[in-house]
């Protein structure tokens, strides 16, 4: 995993994360930061690298991670482009993530406290005295009652087992988005973010597109320009000899 992030020097055991909050907090704590916008902006890239490196995520977990990645991107893009207007819903997502992260921080502290004491000083119940069994059936015991109890139990089991499947829906990966963006930039040389993200209806997809864009900007593969506060973002190839600058 270290090969993926030569610049940071952090080594994170990527496969041991069950959820996104755990990874987020680890990244923040390693930098000795507090949970706030600044910290979230600082760890966005590495968080996303982690998500990208996970090819074999179970779908439901992937959705959790990508959702958080999308919100991190909102926070980061707001910090990069102060004029960027977030919708009410996006604002709510940002606030929700921060609240949940603060709450999770406490839960993690609590779980560490419990880990410290769990099983260390076990209090045991009274020793079992073999009591003489006495045949004592009850009013609610009958053959139909047994059949009904078991049928209900088995039906409830089945429902629980079916649940995860229903939740799974196909999700674009960040890699797919990166590829799409790169090839479109190369062929069209200049296109706007709206054009690029147009046609995708899922909010997550739009945001993943944006993330991919920011990555390319950072890598110097494309240039992104925004000429007015609420204007569209123009994306162009950075090879200036091949592409005339607009403006």
């Amino acid at each position, binding site marked *: 995993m270290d090969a993926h992030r030569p610049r940071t020097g952090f080594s994170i055991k990527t496969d041991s994360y069950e959820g996104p909050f755990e990874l987020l907090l680890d990244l923040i704590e390693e930098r000795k930061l507090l949970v706030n916008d600044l910290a979230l902006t600082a760890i966005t890239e590495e968080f996303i690298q982690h998500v990208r490196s996970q090819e074999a995520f179970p779908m439901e977990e992937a959705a959790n991670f990508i959702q958080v990645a999308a919100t991190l991107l909102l926070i980061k893009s707001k910090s990069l482009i102060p004029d960027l207007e977030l919708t009410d819903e996006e604002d709510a997502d940002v606030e929700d993530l921060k609240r949940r992260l603060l709450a999770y921080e406490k839960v993690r502290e609590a779980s560490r406290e419990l880990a410290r004491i769990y099983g260390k000083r076990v209090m*045991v119940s*009274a*020793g*079992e*005295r073999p*009591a003489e*069994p*006495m*045949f*004592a*059936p*009850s*009013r*609610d*015991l*009958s*053959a*139909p*009652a*047994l*059949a009904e*109890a*078991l*049928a209900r*139990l*088995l039906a409830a*089991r089945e429902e*629980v087992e079916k649940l995860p499947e229903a939740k799974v829906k196909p999700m674009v990966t960040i890699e797919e988005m990166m590829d799409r963006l790169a090839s479109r930039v190369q062929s069209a040389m200049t296109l706007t973010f709206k054009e690029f993200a147009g046609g995708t209806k899922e909010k997550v997809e739009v945001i993943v597109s944006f993330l991919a864009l920011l990555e390319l900007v950072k890598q110097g593969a494309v240039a992104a320009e925004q000429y007015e506060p609420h204007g569209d973002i123009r994306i162009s190839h950075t090879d200036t000899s091949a592409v005339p600058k607009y403006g």
Partner: protein
Amino acid sequence: MLTPPAALHALLFAAGEPLSKQEIAKLLDIKPAEVKTALKALTASLEGSGVALIETEHAVELRTAPEAAPLVKKLRESELARDLGKASLETLAVIAYRTGSSRSEIDWVRGVNSSASIRTLLLRGLIEGSEDPNDKRRIRYSLTTEAFGHLGIKSAEDLPRADELMAMTQAAAEQEAVADSE
């Protein structure tokens, strides 16, 4: 740190059966004379507490105090008289439709810990346990003949929807073996 009488108290409570004075000396790592002193102190401190120390020549045991006998009788009667309730009914159903289920299999099928229910069912004479011949630590449960009698049936095959529910319970329990070996 616990005082010797307190340590003795904890030991007897956890044992649930008589412990020999020799064993006590060994477990507490004290001399027989000290065991005697500790027993005396514990007897005194339990005075009027509802629980008492029963001492024979070689062994000691914790028991409810004689004054509590009517209360204990009331508890036993209430334990035996109340409805089985959802948890125990489910547990009994799993055992009825899959004779020889073990505790971990019942837990797995039900998705919750079933020890308390198994205890209740044993106490009420509705199920009985026997050692698994292949694994002595594993107890396998089955309905008692009295339970079949109360249900008005001769064997498990006479239970309602027997084939269907037996197959389903079997399938659910088999998943436990898979999960266990993972």
